[in-house]
């Protein structure tokens, strides 16, 4: 029997970036998986856990486990929410429960790289465009999907490995792989620093001649998109899944 994949759609993605969730669903189906979208889905609880409101965090962790723990795989177009469930539910869920849940959780590119495998990966949509890759912190330093510049280990990037299977794509790296400054409620509590960080990321990509940024976390992209629009900076932001599924429109 084909293994079943549960799709987790982060709360803000559901309402603001449905096309990325739809793209994720299509890519997973194209790999031959039976994909379910169990409901009702809630927030992963990250805003509460990261602010130290652990009682609130626990209710979201338990709801997440209730909904997803019986699937073979849980995949989301977000490294941040997956990282929360994988690493920050520790201490909130029963240890045994968390131990069983954590290995089932995958960010989309991680799933395509580790479970599907590059050689069996089916991507049918060419993308003859230049794309600046934004490596989000949770992808880089929490889920370890690529080598962060701090570590003296051999270079690897699961995100780039998957993305570079797309025909015609040109992947550009910014000079710095540092944080975009979103950081959840950090973006409003430390508004000035957050905005300075985001503007620096956008400027870095623009210096590399990038007009479209792609990433695996829409929260980072939402923050930078908001800054670019406020400043009138020409830059498009797309989720990696939209490229993989051929869902980026050009007028």
């Amino acid at each position: 029997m084909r293994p079943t994949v549960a799709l987790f759609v982060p709360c803000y993605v559901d309402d603001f970036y449905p096309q990325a969730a739809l793209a994720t669903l299509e890519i997973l189906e194209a790999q031959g998986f039976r994909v379910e979208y169990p409901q009702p889905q809630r927030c992963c609880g990250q805003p509460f856990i990261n602010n130290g409101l652990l009682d609130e965090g626990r209710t979201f962790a338990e709801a997440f486990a209730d909904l997803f723990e019986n699937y073979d795989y849980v995949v989301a177009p977000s490294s941040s929410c997956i990282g929360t469930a994988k690493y920050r539910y520790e201490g909130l869920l029963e240890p045994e429960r968390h131990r069983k849940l954590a290995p089932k959780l995958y960010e989309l590119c991680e799933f395509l790289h580790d479970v599907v495998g590059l050689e069996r990966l089916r991507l049918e949509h060419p993308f003859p465009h230049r794309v600046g890759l934004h490596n989000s912190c949770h992808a880089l330093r929490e889920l370890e999907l690529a080598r962060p510049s701090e570590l003296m280990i051999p270079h690897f990037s699961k995100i780039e490995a998957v993305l570079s299977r797309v025909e015609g794509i040109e992947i550009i790296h910014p000079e710095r792989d540092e944080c975009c400054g979103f950081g959840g409620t950090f973006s409003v509590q430390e508004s000035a620093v957050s905005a300075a960080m985001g503007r620096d990321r956008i400027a870095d990509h623009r210096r590399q001649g990038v007009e479209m940024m792609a990433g695996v976390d829409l929260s980072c992209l939402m923050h930078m998109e908001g800054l670019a629009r406020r400043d009138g900076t020409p830059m498009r932001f797309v989720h990696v899944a939209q490229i993989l599924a051929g869902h980026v429109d050009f007028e």
Partner: protein
Amino acid sequence: MKSEEPTFVNHARNAEEFLRDSEQARWHDRALWFVRQKRDTAAASVPEWEELRRAAEAIKAHTLEHLGYYLERFEERARDNGIEVLWAEDAAEFRRLVAEILERHGAARVVKSKSMLTEECGLNPHLEARGIEVTDTDLGERIVQLAGDRPSHIVLPAIHLRKEQVAEIFSSHLHTDPANADPTYLTRAAREHLRRKFLEADAAVTGVNFALAEEGAFVVCTNEGNADLGTALPDLHIACMGLEKLIPSARDLGIFTRLLARSATGQAITTYTSHFRRPKPGGRLYLILVDNGRSTLLQSSRRELLSCIRCGACMNTCPVYRRSGGHSYGTVVPGPVGSALAGSRNPQRYASLPFACSLCASCDLVCPVRIDLHRHLLDERPQTIRVPEYRGKVRGLKAAAFLLRHPRLYRQTMTALRRLLPRLPRSLIYNRFNLWGQEREMPSPAPRSFRELYRARQESDDDR
């Protein structure tokens, strides 16, 4: 600001202030990122870099686990070497001990090399109040001292000042040309000035980078040789160290010296790595071991923070530190490790510091002793969120949690919001209550949510 310290350090507000001088802020970010890049290059030149970090982490953890044993061993060996070992329980006792030693020896002029511990314990003002002249001999610290300012970085204390500002400070204290901001010119002036101070000094105060338990000796690392010059001339040397500076023996030292300078500035080794084992002939060598909260830290979940070797790498890499400056933290040690340490000192006053972090975790990965810094900052939050200053924030988060916990209510709210947002006048969306909108545009709501798209997709599947 200096004498009347606010009860609550508002990092976000201080950072906003710092960023207002955008040119200076950009320079600060670039200068420190440059140091971070030098660190990367230096670290990459050591094939076993990650192994070194793991070894350093393990040695520090072991030493802290058996700190009592190593402290006794160290004290015994140091005494055998003729070092006079003293213990200070807190900052006040430490200040009193240093003042007593100096007064007993009739020392009125002191040269001091860099020691964050003496900053932590407020040594300079205490000695100055007793008529003892203290000259900080590290160039950056001397600049800051002359300006009546505070260090903003533990390795680069004057990184917040531009060379033009240094020219101004020097012109009023060292009578240099205020229009000449040439670094070589200014450094020469400082050197001449400091040479006189070295020659006149009655005593030297130094910090300690590493204390070797087995040998009863200690090591001081500088780039300017100021600790050596200071201790070479006067007969009296007082070395000050926190309890955590201990490592088991000289055999372990190489691991740390290889990590320290590479992590700090990207140098292979500090220009001077000076070993002190016994007083010089006819001289006196005192060593003061300071607790000042460290044994409490040792017993807590924050123990790991005592492994810190004060390289400053976490500051250089921190995207928040680089864009807010060291003074925005209101602590002696700023940046990620400073924020983590501050909670153990005064959680109320420093409640904003654990939040001055986007949890990017870059600090963890540059830390030469692999302290899980971002995890410590996260773990502080359940306590620090409770301060009165964050009452509004907590209320907002709890309201959001309520909404998100009730999927039907949440969906109805979001659907209404998605339909309403595009029709509202701009002034109603962007106002002072919209914190997100201070700096950025709101995301454009999609015409249909994913759950709606999914339902439509399922229904058309069923039709087929």
